[in-house]
C-alpha cells in the first residue's frame, strides 16, 4: 500500500549515517515506525538519570543541547543539529541516561524504535561501528571514575561483528592439502605432485606439518644434482613451515607471505606449527582473489633494474590502496601492506645505489625511516624523512667512511625522489651530513636533545624518535633505540617539554562544534587534517610510549599497547585508536581523490556524513590532550 508519509521520512533518513548504510527495504520498515516529536525551545527531551526511552533520536529540524550535571554544576557537552543522533545510550546498554537533552530552539526529532535496530546492529557491521563511534565520542567524560571500563560492557555482540569483518574478506585456501611422510622418497613425492597437479607438497608427521617441498626445491636441489630422487623428502624439505590459523583474511595472508618471503602458508588448527594441518594457502590463491596483489608488486620491485620501474610499481601500489579503501579493508592492514611495499622500494633503491657505486660499504650501517614512514602510516606519497647510522670507526677512517655513506645516501634519496617521494623541505634526509653519522654521534645527539629541550630540538626529537630500521644492521638500530629510552628515563622533565609542544595543536572544534578552519593563506576555509587531527593523536601516542618504554612506532599499535599497560584508561586509548583509523582512512581517500597528500580538507565540499564522521574524532583528541596535560604537568613548563 502506498504510504506517502513514511516515504518522506525514508527520503530524509537515507541522507544521514547510519541510515544510508541500510538496505532500502529495511529502512522503509524503520520509516514506517518512526515517532515524530516536536519540542519548544528549552523543552526537555530527556533528563539525566531518566529511564531509557524506547527510541533513539535523529534531529529533523532545529538543534538539541546535551548537558550533564556534575556536583550541581550544569556542564554543556554538545550541541547537535540537523541529522545528528542523540540518546543512543539505551541502544547500547539498558541504563538510564547519563546526560540530559533539551531543545536549543524549536525542534522536531524523529524517534527511531530501538527494538527494530537490534537486528540491524547484528546484520550491518558498519552501522554498529558508526553507532559505537557516535556513542563513544558524544556520551562521556572519560576521566570520571564512574564510567571507567563500562563503555563497551554490553556490546559483545557488536564486537563480535567487528572481528567477523575480516572473515567477510577471508582468503580462500585449499582445504584438502596433499601431504606425505618424512620417509617418502623425492621420486614418490614428485609423482604425487604431478598426479595432483600441485606445485608443493607438505611433509607431515601425525598430521602435524614439519616441512614443505615446492617446485622450486625440485629445481634447485634435484635438478642441479645436489640431491638424488632416491633421497628422502625430509632431507630436502624447507622446515619449519610458516603457519596461520583458519580465519585468515586476504590482507593477513598477504602480510604473512610478504614478511616471511614465502609462497605457501600452512593453515593449521590453532595457527601454530604444533597442531594439525587443515589447509594450504598459496600466493596463487591470493592472486586469484585479487588481480593486483602486493606480493606481485614486491616481486616486481625485487626484479626492478632502475628507479623508473620502481616509480611505475609505486603508482600501481596507489591503485591498490584505492581498491583496498573501496573494499573497506581495515586501514590497519592497508597501512601494513603499503609500508611493506615502501620498505621494499627503499631497500631496492639502496641495493641499486650500492651497485652503482661499485664498492661495498666500508662499515656496517642502518638505513632508518623517520616520521610517518617510520611509524608505517604512510599511505600516500609524502616527503621522505630518513637518516643513516654507521658503526663507530677509528678517527683516521672516519672521513672516508662518512663520504661513502653520504654518496650512497645522495643516490638513494635521488631515486626515492624519482619514485615520487619528494625531498624533505627541512632536509631531514640521510644525504644531509648532519643526519648521516656514526652511532656514537647519534647517541650524543639524542642526549643533547633530551637534556636541553629547546623548541628546535624538541621538534627534531619528534621526528627522529619514530625511527624504524629499513635496511642494514639491526644491532646498530637497537643500540640507538636503547640510548633514547635510557636518556629519557634519566630526564623525565623532557617528557613535560614534549607534552607542551604536543598540546600546541588544540582539538579542531569551536564552541558550537564548528570546524576551526585555516583563516588565511592559500588553504583558507579548508581544514588541516594532518596538523589538527592526525598529529595530535600521533604525538599523544608517542609521548605516552616514550614514558612507558614502549618500543613500537605505529600509532595504532602504540595505543593498543597502552590499553594493555593502563587498563584503567582503556576506553580513552581505544577511542584514540579508532579515531586515528578513521582519520587516516579519511586523509587517504581525500588524498587519492584530489591527487595530493590529503593534508587539507575543503570543509564546504564535505557531505554531512563525512562531516559527522570527522567531528566524531575530535573528542578523543581533546581527551588525550587533557590526559597529557595532567600527567606531564605541562602547565609548569614555561612558554617555549
Amino acid at each position, binding site marked *: *500500500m*502506498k*504510504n*506517502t*508519509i*513514511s516515504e*518522506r*521520512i525514508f527520503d530524509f533518513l537515507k541522507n544521514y549515517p547510519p541510515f544510508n548504510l541500510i538496505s532500502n527495504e529495511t529502512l522503509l520498515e524503520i*520509516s*514506517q*515506525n*518512526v*515517532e*515524530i*516529536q*516536536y519540542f*519548544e525551545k528549552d523543552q526537555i527531551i530527556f533528563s539525566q538519570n531518566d529511564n531509557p526511552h524506547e527510541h533513539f533520536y535523529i534531529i529533523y*529540524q532545529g538543534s538539541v543541547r546535551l548537558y550533564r550535571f556534575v556536583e550541581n554544576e550544569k556542564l554543556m557537552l554538545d550541541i547537535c543539529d540537523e541529522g545528528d543522533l542523540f540518546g543512543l545510550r539505551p541502544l547500547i546498554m539498558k541504563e538510564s541516561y547519563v546526560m540530559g537533552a533539551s531543545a536549543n530552539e*524549536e525542534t*522536531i526529532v524523529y*524517534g527511531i524504535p530501538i527494538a527494530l535496530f537490534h537486528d540491524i546492529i547484528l546484520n550491518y557491521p558498519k552501522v554498529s561501528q558508526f553507532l559505537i563511534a557516535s556513542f563513544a565520542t558524544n556520551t562521556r567524560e572519560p576521566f570520571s571514575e564512574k564510567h571507567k571500563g563500562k563503555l563497551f560492557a554490553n556490546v559483545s555482540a557488536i564486537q563480535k561483528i567487528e572481528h567477523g569483518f575480516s572473515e567477510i574478506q577471508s582468503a580462500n585456501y585449499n582445504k584438502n592439502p596433499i601431504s606425505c611422510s618424512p620417509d617418502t622418497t623425492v621420486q614418490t613425492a614428485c609423482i604425487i605432485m604431478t598426479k595432483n597437479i600441485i606445485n608443493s607438497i607438505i611433509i607431515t608427521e601425525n598430521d602435524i606439518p614439519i616441512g614443505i617441498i615446492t617446485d622450486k626445491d625440485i629445481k634447485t636441489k634435484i635438478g642441479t644434482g645436489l640431491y638424488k630422487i632416491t633421497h628422502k623428502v625430509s632431507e630436502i624439505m624447507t622446515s619449519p613451515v610458516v603457519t596461520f590459523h583458519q580465519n585468515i583474511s586476504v590482507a593477513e595472508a598477504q602480510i604473512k607471505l610478504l614478511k616471511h618471503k614465502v609462497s605457501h602458508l600452512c593453515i593449521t588448527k590453532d595457527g601454530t606449527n604444533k597442531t594439525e594441518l587443515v589447509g594450504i594457502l598459496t600466493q596463487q590463491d591470493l592472486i586469484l582473489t585479487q588481480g593486483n596483489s602486493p606480493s606481485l608488486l614486491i616481486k616486481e620491485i625485487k626484479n626492478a633494474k632502475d628507479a623508473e620501474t620502481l616509480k611505475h610499481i609505486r603508482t600501481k601500489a596507489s591503485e591498490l590502496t584505492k581498491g583496498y579503501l573501496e573494499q573497506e579493508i581495515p586501514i590497519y592492514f592497508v597501512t601494513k601492506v603499503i609500508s611493506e611495499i615502501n620498505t621494499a622500494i627503499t631497500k631496492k633503491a639502496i641495493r641499486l645505489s650500492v651497485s652503482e657505486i661499485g664498492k661495498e660499504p666500508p662499515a656496517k650501517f642502518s638505513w632508518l625511516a623517520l616520521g610517518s614512514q617510520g611509524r608505517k602510516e604512510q599511505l600516500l606519497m609524502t616527503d621522505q624523512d630518513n637518516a643513516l647510522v654507521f658503526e663507530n670507526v677509528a678517527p683516521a677512517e672516519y672521513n672516508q667512511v662518512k663520504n661513502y655513506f653520504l654518496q650512497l645516501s645522495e643516490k638513494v634519496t635521488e631515486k626515492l625522489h624519482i619514485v615520487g617521494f619528494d625531498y624533505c623541505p627541512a632536509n631531514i634526509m640521510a644525504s644531509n651530513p648532519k643526519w648521516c653519522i656514526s652511532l656514537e654521534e647519534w647517541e650524543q645527539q639524542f642526549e643533547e636533545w633530551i637534556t636541553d629541550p629547546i623548541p628546535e630540538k624538541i621538534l627534531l626529537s619528534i621526528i627522529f624518535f619514530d625511527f624504524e630500521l629499513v635496511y642494514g644492521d639491526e644491532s646498530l638500530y637497537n643500540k640507538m633505540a636503547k640510548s633514547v629510552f635510557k636518556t629519557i628515563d634519566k630526564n623525565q622533565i623532557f617528557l613535560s617539554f614534549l607534552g607542551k609542544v604536543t598540546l600546541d595543536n588544540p582539538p579542531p572544534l569551536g564552541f558550537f562544534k564548528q570546524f576551526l578552519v585555516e583563516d588565511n593563506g592559500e588553504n583558507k576555509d579548508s581544514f588541516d587534517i594532518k596538523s589538527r587531527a592526525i598529529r595530535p593523536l600521533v604525538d599523544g601516542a608517542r609521548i605516552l610510549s616514550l614514558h612507558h618504554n614502549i618500543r613500537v612506532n605505529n600509532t595504532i599499535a602504540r595505543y593498543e599497547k597502552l590499553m594493555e599497560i593502563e587498563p584503567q584508561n582503556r576506553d580513552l586509548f581505544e577511542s584514540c585508536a579508532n579515531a586515528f583509523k578513521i582519520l587516516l582512512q579519511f586523509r587517504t581517500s581525500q588524498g587519492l581523490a584530489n591527487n595530493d597528500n590529503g593534508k587539507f580538507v575543503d570543509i564546504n565540499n564535505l557531505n554531512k556524513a563525512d562531516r559527522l564522521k570527522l567531528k566524531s574524532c575530535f573528542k578523543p583528541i581533546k581527551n588525550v590532550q587533557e590526559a597529557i596535560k595532567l600527567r606531564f604537568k605541562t602547565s609548569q613548563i614555561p612558554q617555549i
Partner: protein
Amino acid sequence: MFSWFKYKNYQIFWKEYSKKFKQKQPKSFENTRFVIFDTETTGLDIYNDRILSIGAIGIFNHNIDVADSYEVYLKQEAFKAETVEIHGILKEGKLTKLPEAQAMEQFVNYIGNAVLVAHHTAFDIEMINAALKRMDLPKLRNKTIDTGILYKKLEGKKDSHFNLDVLSSEFNIPKHDRHTAAGDAFITALLFLKIVSKLKKERNLHYSDLFRVSGKEGLM
C-alpha cells in the same frame, strides 16, 4: 441500491465503532489519541463531489506515530478534469483504488473514537458523512478540532481565512507532498503540535478549550 446482505455488513462495523464511544473518553491531551486527516476531493460541493483519497496519521502523548497512519485512494465514477491539477489523482492511475464503501469501513475502523483533527475540519467531515449516508449509515460521532480555528485563537484573529500554505510557511514546516491527502495530513499534524504547544505555553490551555469554537464564521 444496496443489498440487504451488504447493509447488514455495514451494520456490523458500525456497531463496533459505536461501541467505542460507550467507554469513558480521556480527559487530557496526553491520554487522547488524535487522528489528523485530510481528504482530496473532486471539488467543494458536498453533495455532488466525491472523495478521491484520504490520508491520516495518529498523535498520542505529543508524538506523531508514523506506524499509526492510514492512506487510501478511492474508486469514483465522478471525475472532474479541472481539479486533477490540484490533487494529481488520475481516474485510471496506477494507484490501487478501493470502492468507496470499503474505504469508509477501513477508515472508520482506523479512527475509532479518536479526536479528529483537520485544517478546516467541517468540510472533510461533511464529505465523509456524505459518503456514509450513501451507505445508509449515520454521521461520525468523533469530537473534532479545526487547526484553522486553533490558529485564530492563538493569534486572536477573527475573520481572515488561513490556508495551509500560509500557515506552514509561518510555522516553518517543509511543504513536501502538498495536495496529497497524506502529505497535507502530515503537515497539519506538525501544525497542530506546534500550535497546541504555543497555546499551552501562552494561555495555560486546558484540554476542553481545544474543542471550544469561538464565533460561528463560515468555515468554507
